[in-house]
């Protein structure tokens, strides 16, 4: 008989010694959080006219400061070991964490510029989200020039979640981070100024599916907790190595179910097939700057978390999760590439392309090696810059009437005639997506495929290569459309890139080319290096013993 009365545990361990939070190591997170909170206060107390500027300055300064702090922490990591665990080791500050956080912050900074773009008092966000689309109320708000400056604090909270997601060192923190990241994004998705019905629909879909997937994630955590008796990654690792925590006999199925369900949750965030259905809808419906934020930062964060979970917590059971990821990676690369070919809307197409890219990164995850980690990290950073640039271009091309974005590809025909610079930029980004040498996409692709081949996953790489040929087809088709086709009957209205959007595109181009031509500094200095003995000793088929020294344990 289990008594229903829950026990009050005897005094928790906290009492004996005052817990020590290393505020310095947590400072990037704290800064972003503080800015978000201050942003809420600004919403409450600052006059309507000054809000946008205040919020923008705050947000940019906050993200910038957080980035600087992140950089400074690289220096303050201990020489020995990968890094340190902070706040009862619930947050891991190690090199992968800092790289992911730094990448997220930079990408978020660029996205913020895109979010802040404000032409003729018209941003990408609804004047009043609560007003029913098409109603008199909305009209009144539009004419009055209302703006949702809540966007900035929401973005800051989302960024906070993204920073914490790859850094979390136990499942509870990771779950919280997941939600902190997702909840603001659900809202942001529904705030588009044009095509508000699409936008609201995207928000509902994203929300329902996101909540669904996070429930799976959570149940997976519960199972793993049952198996291991702890949600801390290091304990889970130890428990997996030891065959369970000993309380439940023959608990192997718990672990397997848990692993699979956690995988579902993470793969959903990543957008891998068969959990990708939300991506095209959400990317299409969301305001484009938010799409850019999601396509870059969220992907980075989600993969960061995925890598940490599978490399650290489940590092001792590589052989169990590997086949699952193999299948997922193959499905992702092949199906998404094939479906993408039929798309007619640029944002949907980019969404499917993002799914395919997730598949490519998964091949590196499958490698389960230092090279795999580094390859995935590089790929994500490179892809992030490129994709933000691409979405920035999308924001500039508008339908001839009404001011909505020209989603239909047919309207993009002959864009190179009227705006060669824009078309050229998008062309470059598309070539980078396709993985043409001398762009960052190629180096990224090389890095992930190299890791996979070295780990004996050559068939996966062959599939990847074939699907990347398929993807090249639709990228090239867009280029053909823009450069070689006659302009469409109803030519789109191409906005002059304002200072902010122009900067975003410029940074995208610069990063795409620089990372393509001189990837050395990033690859050699910022990413984890395979240790010496691993480089020599590993047989291609023997990979899959996750190296121990990359993450904090």
């Amino acid at each position, binding site marked *: 008989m289990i008594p229903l009365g829950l026990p009050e545990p005897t005094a928790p361990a906290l009492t004996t010694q005052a817990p020590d939070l290393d505020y310095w190591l947590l400072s990037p997170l704290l800064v972003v959080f503080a800015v978000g909170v201050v942003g809420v206060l600004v919403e409450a107390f600052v006059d309507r006219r000054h809000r946008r500027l205040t919020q923008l300055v705050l947000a940019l300064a906050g993200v910038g400061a957080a980035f600087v702090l992140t950089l400074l922490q690289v220096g303050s990591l201990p020489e020995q070991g990968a890094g340190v665990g902070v706040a009862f080791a619930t947050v891991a500050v190690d090199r992968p964490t800092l790289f992911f956080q730094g990448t997220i912050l930079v990408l978020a900074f660029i996205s913020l510029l895109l979010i802040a773009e404000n032409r003729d008092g018209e941003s990408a966000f609804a004047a009043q989200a609560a007003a029913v689309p098409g109603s008199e109320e909305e009209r009144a708000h539009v004419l009055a020039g209302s703006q949702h400056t809540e966007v900035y604090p929401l973005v800051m909270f989302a960024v906070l979640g993204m920073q914490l997601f790859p850094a979390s060192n136990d499942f509870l923190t990771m779950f919280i981070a997941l939600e902190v990241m997702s909840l603001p994004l659900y809202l942001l998705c529904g705030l588009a100024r044009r095509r508000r019905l699409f936008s609201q629909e995207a928000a509902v879909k994203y929300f329902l599916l996101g909540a669904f997937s996070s429930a799976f994630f959570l149940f997976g955590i519960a199972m793993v907790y049952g198996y291991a008796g702890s949600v801390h990654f290091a304990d889970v690792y130890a428990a997996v190595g030891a065959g369970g925590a000993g309380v439940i006999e023959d608990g192997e199925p718990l672990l397997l179910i848990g692993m699979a369900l956690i995988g579902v949750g993470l793969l959903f965030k990543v957008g891998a097939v068969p959990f990708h259905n939300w991506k095209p809808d959400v990317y299409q419906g969301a305001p484009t700057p938010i799409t850019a934020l999601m396509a870059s930062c969220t992907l980075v964060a989600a993969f960061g978390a995925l890598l940490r979970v599978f490399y650290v917590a489940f590092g001792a059971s590589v052989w169990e999760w590997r086949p699952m990821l193999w299948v997922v990676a193959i499905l992702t690369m092949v199906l998404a590439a094939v479906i993408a070919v039929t798309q007619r809307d640029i944002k949907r197409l980019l969404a499917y392309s993002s799914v395919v890219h997730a598949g490519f990164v998964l091949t590196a995850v499958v490698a389960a090696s230092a090279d795999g980690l*580094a390859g995935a990290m590089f790929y994500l950073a490179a892809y992030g810059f490129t994709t933000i640039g691409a979405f920035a271009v999308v924001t500039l091309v508008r339908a001839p009437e009404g001011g909505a974005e020209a989603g239909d590809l047919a309207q993009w025909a002959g864009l190179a*005639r009227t705006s060669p610079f824009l078309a050229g930029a998008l062309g470059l980004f598309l*070539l980078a997506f*396709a*993985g*043409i*040498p*001398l762009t960052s996409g*190629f*180096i990224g*692709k*090389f*890095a992930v*495929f*190299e890791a996979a*081949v*070295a780990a004996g996953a*050559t068939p996966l*790489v*062959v599939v990847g*290569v*074939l699907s*990347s*040929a398929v993807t*090249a*087809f639709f990228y*090239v*088709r867009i280029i*053909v459309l823009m*450069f*070689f*086709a006659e302009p469409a009957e109803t030519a789109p209205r191409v906005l002059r890139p304002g200072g902010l959007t122009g900067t975003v595109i410029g940074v995208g181009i610069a990063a795409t080319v620089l990372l393509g031509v001189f*990837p*050395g500094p990033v*690859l*050699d200095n910022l*990413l984890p*290096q395979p240790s010496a003995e691993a*480089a*020599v000793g590993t*047989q*291609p088929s023997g990979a899959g013993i996750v190296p121990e020294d990359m993450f904090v344990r």
Partner: protein
Amino acid sequence: MTIPWLTLAIALPAVGALVVALIPRERAELAKRVALACTLVVLAVVGAMALNFDPSGPRFQFTEVHPWIARFGVHYAVGVDGIALTLIGLSALLVPLVVLAAWKEQEDAEDRGKGYFALILVLEAMMIGVFAATDVFLFYVFFEAMLIPVYFMIGRYGRGGERRRASMKFLLYSLLGGLLMLVAVIGVYAYSAQAGNGTFLWADLVGAEGLLAGVDTTAARWLFLGFFVAFAIKAPMWPVHTWLPAAAGSSRPGTAVLLVGVLDKVGTYGMLRYCLELFPGAAAWFVWPVVVLSLVSIIYGAVVAIGQTDMLRLIAYTSVSHFGFITLGIFAMTSQGQSGAALYMVNHGFSTGALFLIAGFLITRNNGSAVIADYGGVQKVAPVLAGTFLVAGLSSLALPGLSPFVSEFLVFVGTFTVLPVPAVVATVGVVLAALYILWMYQRMMTGPVREKLAGMADLSGREVWAVAPLIAVIILFGVYPQPLLDVINPAVEQTMQQIDVSDPAPVLGVDQAGGQEGAGE
């Protein structure tokens, strides 16, 4: 301090391309001049380099090695042997001629051809780079990146309504091949890393002591195939040649010259340099399939060429046939065969280049039509044009005294000693070559002058300057190929050494039949 000739030759056109691209659209004339000047300077640099080349020296000369991406053992490593040098020379020679020939072609384009010339320069940089690279990764980078300028040259500046489809076909074919090669390239790296030192340096990889020596047979065959498919698509070899006629037919003749004259050589060059030397065992295993494919290419290309109604497509198909000879020579694995193949690459560049250029002149004179039936009696109104066309055509069918003859002969000789039956079959191609070239000449140049062509002008001074060097070279090397052979032969010798193959012992005193019987037993 030694002069970094190769880097110079790569960087100059790249910088030139940037300059041309930055010149405003209104001053397109200036842009063209800058482009021409740039190509001429490159030609001078390459020429100077060629003069400094020592045929009896080490195999690779003018080498430079700088680390590029340390993590993957990637180097910026360049250097040339005889084969590469001749091909670089070919590129450097053809590009200014193309620029000259294309001077007025893009007048109607929106940017008045400025972009076209910039692309040509970019392409030149990459062509030189791809031949000069001695790092597999670097080679691959140039190999793939080269596609983009050509893609735009066909798709944006091409001719005819099919050019979008053609450019896309070209790009996708090449990309598919390139991606398969990427797997093989990664495989090479993985095996080298396994052997203790992850690197892409060609010199470290090849040979009996090289890092790839330990690759097991099956893996080596797969890797070979990865490279070979990419090169076969590029070369273009039957059955993956279908992009070429479309691409050549839809491109401006200048583009076609570079495409067929130089770009496709990358395929055969890659077979010789990478397929054979990195995986000699696998190459030996694949000899027969490749030879069969070569023979099919030779015959098929020739037969289909006969049936063409469009002269650009016809020339493209002849190239399919000629590339069959080159691959045949390469995979004969004899020194004559490979020398012949190497020489053929250069000579084919000259002859096909000349053919395309003159075809281009014809097309501009006839409202952009490349249909053979639209011509007739040209030699009466434009004798110089017709004459040069004839010379180029004859060189294409390997008339003795013109340069391709020497190479074709060497290929035959080299093949016959080891693979007599294929050699005999291949001769059919020669006969067919005579047929398609002469028949085309007959249809276009002889007979009554067509009305539309009555007022046709003969070659202008600029055009003469564009073609004359080629004709001169064709005749020069037809009569006296020794300088080229002197440069090529040592490289071939070393290649043969690397792949551990030697020519069959001369069968003096034994009659052919006996030898054959001996071989047959």
